[in-house]
C-alpha cells in the first residue's frame, strides 16, 4: 500500500494514480461552481447524455474501416452528444414550464435510453470490437495508455487555467446572478463557459471512473469543502484538494487490489471525506451545530426564566425550571436563590436597557444586534450606557 502511495508500483499504476489525482482536482473545482449555483445534478444529465455519442462515434469510426476504439474519437462523440443534451436541457427550462429537476431527469433518462438502444445495435455489429464501450459506464483503468494519461493531464490543466481565469465572473454568477448581469457580465456566456468546463471534465473522466460515477467526483468534494469555510474561494481550494486526494488515494488503493474497479473506490474515498466533514467540521459540522443548539436553547430558557423571576411571574415550563435549578438560580420549590435574584435583576436591567436602545433611532446600529441574549454592555460605550441608564424610570432591582 505504501508503495502504491509512493508511486512505486509500476508504470501503469503510476499513470493511473496521477491521472486520477489530476481528474479529481479538475472535477472538484468545476463541480464547485455547479454546486454554488445550486445545479449540482446537471452533471448527472451531462454524463448520461454522453452515451449515444459514444456509441454513434464507435459506429461511425468502424464503418469508416477504423479501429473504433480511438479514445479521442469516442470522447469527441461523447462531448457532442453531451452538448446536445445541455441544449435540450436549456430549451426545456426556458421555453416550457418544466422545472430544472424535471428537465435534468428527462434529458438524463431519454438520452441514456437512446444510448442503450445504440449500444445494443453495436452489440450486434461486430462482437469482439465493442467490448470496450461498456467500460465507459463504470470506468476501466486497466491498460491505460500513456497517451490516455497525457490526455487527462492536458485536459485537467486546461480546465484549471480556465477556472483560474474566470473565477471572478463565476463567483458573481453563483452568488447574485442579477447583479452579475447588471454589472455587464453576460450570464449566458458565464453559464456556457461553466457548463463547457463541466462537460470537458465529464468526458475526460469517463475513462477513469465511468459516466455513472463521474457525478460523484464533481459533487462530493465541493459539498465537503463547503463545511469548512464560508468563503467561495475557500470552497474552490478545499474542493480541489479533497478531489485530488480522493483520486490519488482511491487509485492507489485500487492498484493494491487489482480485481476491484477503480471508479467506485475513488468515489468511496471521497465519500469518507464527506462524512468526516459533515460530522467534524467546526461551526458547520453536525457535532458543532448540535452543541451550539443545545447551548443556545439553554441560554434562552435561562434568560426567560430569569425575566419571569424578576417580574414576579411563575415559570411554566419544566425544562426552564430544571435548567435554572441546575444552574443554581432557584431552589427545588421555585424560589430564587441569592445568585438567582442577582442574575434576575441583572437580566431585567439588561432588558430595560435594550428596550430603550431599540426604541431610539440614535442607537440604530446597536439595536440591530439584539437577539434576546447578548448583554448590552458588549455594544455600547460607557458614555452611551450612562445615557441609557439615566432614562430608566423603573427601579434597578426588584428584590
Amino acid at each position: 500500500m505504501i508503495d502504491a502511495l509512493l508511486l512505486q508500483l509500476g508504470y501503469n499504476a503510476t499513470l493511473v494514480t496521477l491521472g486520477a489525482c489530476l481528474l479529481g482536482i479538475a472535477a472538484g473545482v468545476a463541480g464547485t461552481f455547479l454546486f454554488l449555483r445550486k445545479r449540482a445534478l446537471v452533471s448527472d444529465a451531462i454524463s448520461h447524455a454522453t452515451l449515444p455519442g459514444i456509441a454513434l462515434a464507435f459506429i461511425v469510426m468502424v464503418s469508416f474501416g477504423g479501429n473504433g476504439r480511438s479514445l479521442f474519437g469516442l470522447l469527441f462523440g461523447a462531448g457532442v452528444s453531451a452538448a446536445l443534451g445541455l441544449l435540450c436541457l436549456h430549451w426545456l427550462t426556458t421555453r416550457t414550464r418544466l422545472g430544472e429537476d424535471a428537465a435534468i431527469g428527462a434529458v438524463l433518462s431519454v438520452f441514456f435510453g437512446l444510448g442503450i438502444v445504440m449500444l445494443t445495435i453495436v452489440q450486434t455489429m461486430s462482437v469482439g470490437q465493442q467490448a470496450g464501450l461498456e467500460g465507459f459506464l463504470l470506468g476501466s483503468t486497466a491498460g491505460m495508455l500513456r497517451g490516455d494519461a497525457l490526455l487527462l493531464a492536458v485536459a485537467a490543466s486546461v480546465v484549471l487555467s480556465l477556472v483560474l481565469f474566470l473565477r471572478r465572473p463565476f463567483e458573481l454568477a453563483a452568488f447574485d446572478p442579477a447583479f452579475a448581469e447588471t454589472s455587464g457580465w453576460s450570464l449566458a456566456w458565464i453559464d456556457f463557459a461553466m457548463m463547457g468546463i463541466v462537460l470537458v471534465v465529464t468526458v475526460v473522466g469517463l475513462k477513469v471512473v465511468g459516466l455513472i460515477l463521474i457525478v460523484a467526483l464533481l459533487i462530493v468534494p465541493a459539498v465537503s469543502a463547503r463545511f469548512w469555510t464560508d468563503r467561495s474561494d475557500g470552497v474552490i481550494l478545499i474542493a480541489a484538494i479533497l478531489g485530488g486526494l480522493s483520486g490519488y488515494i482511491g487509485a492507489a488503493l485500487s492498484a493494491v487490489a487489482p480485481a476491484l474497479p477503480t471508479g467506485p473506490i475513488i468515489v468511496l474515498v471521497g465519500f469518507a471525506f464527506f462524512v468526516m466533514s459533515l460530522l467534524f467540521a467546526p461551526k458547520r459540522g453536525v457535532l458543532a451545530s448540535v452543541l451550539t443548539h443545545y447551548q443556545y436553547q439553554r441560554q434562552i430558557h435561562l434568560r426567560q426564566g430569569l425575566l419571569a423571576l424578576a417580574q414576579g411571574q411563575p415559570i411554566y415550563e419544566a425544562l426552564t425550571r430544571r435548567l435554572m435549578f441546575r444552574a443554581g438560580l432557584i431552589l427545588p420549590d421555585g424560589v430564587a436563590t441569592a445568585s438567582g435574584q442577582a442574575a434576575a435583576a441583572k437580566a431585567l436591567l439588561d432588558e430595560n436597557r435594550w428596550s430603550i436602545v431599540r426604541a431610539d433611532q440614535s442607537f440604530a446600529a446597536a439595536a440591530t444586534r439584539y437577539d434576546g441574549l447578548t448583554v448590552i454592555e458588549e455594544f455600547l460605550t460607557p458614555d452611551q450606557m450612562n445615557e441609557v441608564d439615566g432614562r430608566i424610570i423603573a427601579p434597578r432591582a426588584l428584590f
Partner: protein
Amino acid sequence: MSISLVNDAHNKNANLAQSVSPLAVHGLTVSYNQTPAIFSVNMVVHPGTMTAIVGPNGAGKSTLLKAVLGVIKPLAGSVSILGKPLVKMRDKIAYMPQRASVDWDFPTRVIDVVMMGMYRNLGLLGRIRASHREQAIKCLNRVGMADFATRQIGQLSGGQQQRVFLARALAQDAEIYVLDEPLAGVDAATEKTIIAVLQELRDSGSTIVAVHHDLATVSDYFDDVVLLNKQVVAAGPIDDIFTEANLQATYGGRLATARVDPESVAI
C-alpha cells in the same frame, strides 16, 4: 421618555381568563439557526374582535402566526385555542397564509382551491356532493369571485388570488380566522371586499387575527392591536395602545409621521 416594561401586555390582559380566550399565547419563542425570530411572546385575544398584529419588517409577525398554527415548532412556550391545545381545536381555526408560500404553477382551478377548505370535513374519501359545490360557490360569491370559478389559479391577479384564499377560509366554517397580510398588494376594490367580509364575520361572533402591513388603516379596520418587534411591545384596544409613543418604540424611532396643521389646510 418612559417606556412600558417588556411583557406589560401580560399584566394588562391578566383579567381575561385564558380559558375563554379564542387564542392565547404564552412565552412563545421561535428561532432560526440561533437567531430568535420572536422571543417570549405573550398574547391574549378577545372573542368577537378584530385584532391586528403590527410591526416592522423582520419583526416575526408571520413567524408568530405559523407557530400559533403549528406550521413551525417553537423553541419554548405554549399556545391554547379556546383553552385547549391546537391539535384538538383545528376545526375551529382557519388560516390564510401569505401568497408567497403557494405553488402557483399547480394545476388547480379557483373552485378546487375553495373546496380544499372542506377537505377536513370530507375526510379522505368522502363524496363531494352538489351541496358542497354550492357551498363553495356561495363562499366565492361572498368575495365576488364566483365568475372565476373555473379559471386556473395562476392566471389571476394578486387581489383575485387573495379573495380566493379568503373564500377557502370561509369554506372551513371556523370560529377563529388567522390571516397573514390579507391586504398586502391588493387593489382598492379587493381591500374593501375583504374588510367587509371580515367585519361581517366579526359581527356574527367570529374572532379575527390578522397581520396587517399598513399602519394608516389599522385604527379604521381593527378593534385591538398587538405591536410586535420580536417581542410584544404593547397590546390591547386600539384607542389605548395605538399611540405614537408605542409606535415609535415598536419601529425603533424610524417612523416618519406626517403632521398636518389643521389651520394651514385651506378648504
